């Protein structure tokens, strides 16, 4: 079974819809420890990514990831922009200039995105950032876990950020006062990973999106 450009286009549409639906909730989370705009950044970013991908005519998977990266970055800026743009570019490199990739290789996309985010933001696990969702997901992927397990690892990592003290990003200045509040970027990351793994799983069963 293959993960095709059609599947990827549908995935970006799903991500845009999901971020639009979660916008106000993510803003509220950011309001507690940051500047209340994370939901807007993710909604605008994924909307732009989806639109940029939809505008392509018979692209390769890499074309799609590159267009999504550029669209996301230029629409958003902020912290999320460079982080997700780098992540998506890395994913594009892995997917390559082809119209489809084996579903069995899609976990590499999660790993590549996690690396891109760490490369750009220099964050380590435990600093209360989106890395706390991406790193465990990548780790699970590396260990050959199922799509469901990868998503679960991301979700657990995201939830764990409530117990962490931020040392990077806007929340860093809060120190101990960031305790008890999950990191908005980690929460949105878990949602993204959930959408991605669900799309991979659907493509595995050949199911239409």
């Amino acid at each position, binding site marked *: 079974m293959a993960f095709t450009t059609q599947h990827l286009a549908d995935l970006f549409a799903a991500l845009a819809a999901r971020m639009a639906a979660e916008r106000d909730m993510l803003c509220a989370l950011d309001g507690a420890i940051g500047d*209340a705009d994370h*939901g807007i950044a993710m909604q605008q970013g994924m909307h732009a990514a989806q639109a940029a991908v939809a505008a392509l005519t018979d692209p390769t998977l890499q074309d799609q990831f590159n267009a999504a990266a550029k669209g996301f970055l230029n629409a958003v800026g902020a912290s999320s922009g460079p982080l997700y743009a780098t992540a998506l570019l890395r994913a594009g490199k892995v997917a390559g200039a082809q119209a489809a990739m084996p579903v069995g290789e899609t976990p590499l996309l999660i790993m590549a995105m996690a690396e891109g985010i760490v490369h750009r933001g220099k964050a380590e696990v435990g600093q209360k950032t989106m890395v706390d969702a991406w790193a465990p997901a990548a780790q699970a992927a590396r260990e050959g876990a199922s799509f469901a397990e990868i998503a679960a690892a991301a979700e657990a990592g995201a939830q764990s950020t409530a117990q962490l003290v931020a040392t990077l990003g806007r929340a860093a200045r809060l120190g101990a006062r960031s305790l008890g509040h999950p990191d908005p970027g980690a929460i949105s990351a878990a949602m993204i990973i959930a959408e991605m793994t669900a799309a991979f799983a659907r493509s595995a069963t050949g199911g239409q999106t």
Partner: protein
Amino acid sequence: MTLTQKLINDGNATVDEMLTGVMAAHGDLLQRPSPRAIVARHGPRPGKVALVIGGGSGHEPTFLGFVGRGLADAAAVGNVFASPPPQPCVDAAMAADGGAGVLFMYGNYAGDVMNFDMATELLEMEGIEARTVLTTDDIASAPEVAMRRGVAGNVFIFKAAGAAADLMLPLDEVERVARHANARTYTMGVALSACSLPQTRRPNFDLPGGEMEIGMGIHGEPGVRRGPLQSANEVADEIMDALLAEMQAPTGAKVAVLVNSLGSTPLMELYIVFARVAERLAGAGLQVHRALVGPYCTSMEMAGASITLMHLDDELTGLLDHPCHCAMFRQG
């Protein structure tokens, strides 16, 4: 819960519509080479270091209001409370470049650092050297200076660097002046109400009536202390105690002072605060060389104020006295 009352059209279009209005009002002073880049008509020139500032919108007149001869050559404009992406930073820098290098100056926020750094890499490919000086004047935002946010003190810090660039100093010197100005500028604020993003029109935090938050950031980042709203003098004293302790200026030293509104706090209240600030400075044996009072670095309609002190020396005094002509800030 009712939505915050805003005079806008589309919550997602506020920044672009604002820029349309800015260009319609100030086309004699400003150019807009790309949608999110604003450049001074009379600032940039051959051989001059280009001072390029920028950051999220919602702080007007910071940043774009300080673009003009004698101050910043250009500004990159982000979404509300969001760093601009790299492209507008590149566009602003290329439009302002006079062949003597570019100095990026902006507040120290994770997002801005990542985006401006990407812009710096892109400029390198164009053969343009861009350096960066981060502003870190918000003493309430972290113990270590390097982790602090840049807030209202930007006005003085950008002004000093902009004057140095206008005097045709080389990049090394403009950078040195900028770091020197930042190192001697101290700000602390108090919030009396939240503000709302135009996309959501919901308060970005909740501060119950009768309470205030000392040290809150200009994006509503939580501050250092929340408590019952106190009198203007008590608030000014708490902030001045902190600023004076940080500044460690000897008696007789000269300072520049900014009493800034975060948005909806009116001039009447700012001058009441300034009266106390002036008393405290006199008490500390410090001379006020320059005083600014008004909305210089805002958070849309947030209620509250900040106090900034710049510890002057002869160099900074001369640079602050240098004339500038911006759309929203005029001097000399």
